[in-house]
């Protein structure tokens, strides 16, 4: 099936015999067998890749006009918006691209959670994904500081101060991160340097992620492995075409925000220049951090000798770290929630819980919202630490189809004819 191609073009052949890049690309992106029942949720990895490239390209052009100095940063961004040719477009693409990246990756992650893509043999693939998520968060946080608006400054202050919760080493670490005694010019400079660096680290980890994917192959909506050639199709043209459809739809969505609602995801306060002497009345992080922010604030009480502040930071950290061990928390023998009558619903409860946490994170911590945040946080951990292991053991899964082919064309009651059923 995957025979080495015979390159007709002599130049290509000459290069390929010495450095087999063409054979590699042909093998991994042309002939690469993918399950023939992949639905549109399998578009989001490729979309994430395209957004990553978009961010790097627009970012490099922006960096040519931007000045990382506390006295000029805000002004230089306004100059980009008003004076630089197409500066407004490039900045709005980069700004909204960040939000798009998180929308895509969150869908990508929940896709994995629903179809059990993290289960053996894809544990490392999943864990690399969590590393990617962490790197993305770091990159987005650093980038948000650069325009040096009020939210930039106070967001940076609050988040770097999280480290001060650590006993003894906390304060020295914060001073070291700042390069001073407050978020200041030294901080802005290093954040610019690191914001430029991070995406390239991301590229490297995404590379490993894709290599790992090409070892195990893609999971699919049934969660059962490819059993023979009848279950798969070559990546090209089948999946390149399907990815292109998804890309078209995504670009329309993306363009809508860039051209018609460019500040939809932003905060008005960030159009006020940073003022280290005046905290805005209500600090909120970017939307993609809200559920985590809600968990940070949910802890308003000390537990034994651990002060509330440290505990809040620990809980927030744990909410992501827990994803690393999901492959071992899930005890179910069946991958896809499509065949898990109980877990299927609990999956959606988790999704709703994340939205509730996001809502709580956006509001001032008052009244019932405090309790909502605490319950939401408790449920989040309950899902991973209790529901996943126990439901996996107790639930009786539905009978699995014998093969992907049977599920798609064998008239099994569980699959829609198109194989594009929503989860």
């Amino acid at each position, binding site marked *: 099936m995957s025979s080495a191609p015979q390159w007709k073009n002599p130049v290509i052949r000459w290069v390929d015999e010495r450095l087999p890049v063409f054979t590699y690309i042909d093998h991994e992106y042309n002939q690469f067998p993918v399950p023939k029942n992949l639905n549109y949720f399998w578009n989001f990895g490729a979309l994430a890749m395209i957004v990553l490239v978009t961010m790097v390209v627009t970012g490099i052009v922006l960096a040519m006009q931007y000045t990382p100095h506390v006295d000029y940063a805000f002004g230089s961004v306004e100059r980009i918006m008003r004076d630089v040719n197409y500066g407004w477009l490039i900045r709005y693409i980069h700004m909204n691209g960040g939000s798009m990246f998180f929308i895509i990756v969150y869908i990508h992650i929940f896709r994995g959670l629903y179809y059990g893509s993290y289960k053996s043999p894809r544990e490392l693939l999943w864990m690399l994904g969590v590393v990617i998520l962490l790197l993305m968060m770091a990159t987005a946080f650093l980038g948000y500081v650069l325009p040096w608006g009020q939210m930039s400054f106070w967001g940076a202050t609050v988040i770097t101060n999280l480290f001060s919760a650590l006993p003894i080493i906390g304060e020295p670490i914060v001073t070291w991160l700042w390069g*001073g005694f407050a978020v*200041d010019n030294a901080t802005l400079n290093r954040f610019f340097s690191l914001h430029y660096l991070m995406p390239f680290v991301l590229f490297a980890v995404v590379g490993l992620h894709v290599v790992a994917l090409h070892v195990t192959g893609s999971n699919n909506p049934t969660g059962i492995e490819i059993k023979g050639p009848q279950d798969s199709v070559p990546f090209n043209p089948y999946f390149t075409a399907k990815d292109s459809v998804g890309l078209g739809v995504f670009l329309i969505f993306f363009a809508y925000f860039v051209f018609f609602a460019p500040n939809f995801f932003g905060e008005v306060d960030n159009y006020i220049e940073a003022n280290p002497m005046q*905290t805005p009345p209500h600090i909120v992080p970017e939307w993609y951090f809200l559920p985590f922010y809600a968990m940070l604030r949910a802890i*308003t009480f000390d537990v034994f000798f651990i002060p509330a502040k440290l505990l809040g930071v620990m809980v927030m950290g744990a909410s992501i770290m827990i994803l690393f061990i999901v492959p071992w928390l899930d005890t179910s023998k069946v991958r896809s929630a499509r065949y898990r009558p109980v877990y299927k619903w609990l999956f959606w409860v988790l999704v709703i819980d994340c939205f509730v946490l996001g809502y709580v994170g956006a509001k001032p*911590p008052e009244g019932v919202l405090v309790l909502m945040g605490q319950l939401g946080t408790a449920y989040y951990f309950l899902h991973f630490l209790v529901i996943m292991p126990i439901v996996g053991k107790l639930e009786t899964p539905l009978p699995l189809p014998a093969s992907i082919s049977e599920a798609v064309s064998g008239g099994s009651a569980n699959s829609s004819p198109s194989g594009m059923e929503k989860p």
Partner: protein
Amino acid sequence: MSEATQSPESTEDDVGRRDFLVLATAAVGAVGAASFVWPLVDSMNPSAEVLALSKIEVDLGPIEEGQSITVVWQGKPVFIRRRTKVEISAAVKDDGADLRQKEKDADRTQKPEWLVMIGICTHLGCIPLGQKAVETKGEYGGWFCPCHGSHYDTSGRIRKGPAPLNLEVPKYKFLDDKSIRIG
């Protein structure tokens, strides 16, 4: 290569010696690498010119009773409040209250009338409200941090909310009756 290491002549002694050499080389290499990393790490700490700005003098003359000013020290806001009789007695009265961080009002001031502290919430670093007359002062009549709802009393002690510690009192010295040096 592998044949040489497994040849009959290589005694157990040899293997032990080789392991030792490998370990010793690796250890020296690790120390060398670490000593190269340290300058890079330390370069990110506050530089000399940032440290040089570490003292300021403040004239307290123009401040009326019940008024506060905010000055900048090391890039941080310092609150200086000339407290009223009522505020002082409230602060002293609460010395015995159930405080998160036990500190007597007298230990937080050099002269009861003047409260000098770093205006940074000990939770996550926002600047509490309460310096201006129009701003909310929280449930204890001192300062209120809007970020996550920390309430400080008229001595700047944490009374309610997520912040773990009282507002920090910096090192300062009265130069004369009406001026101080911070730092």
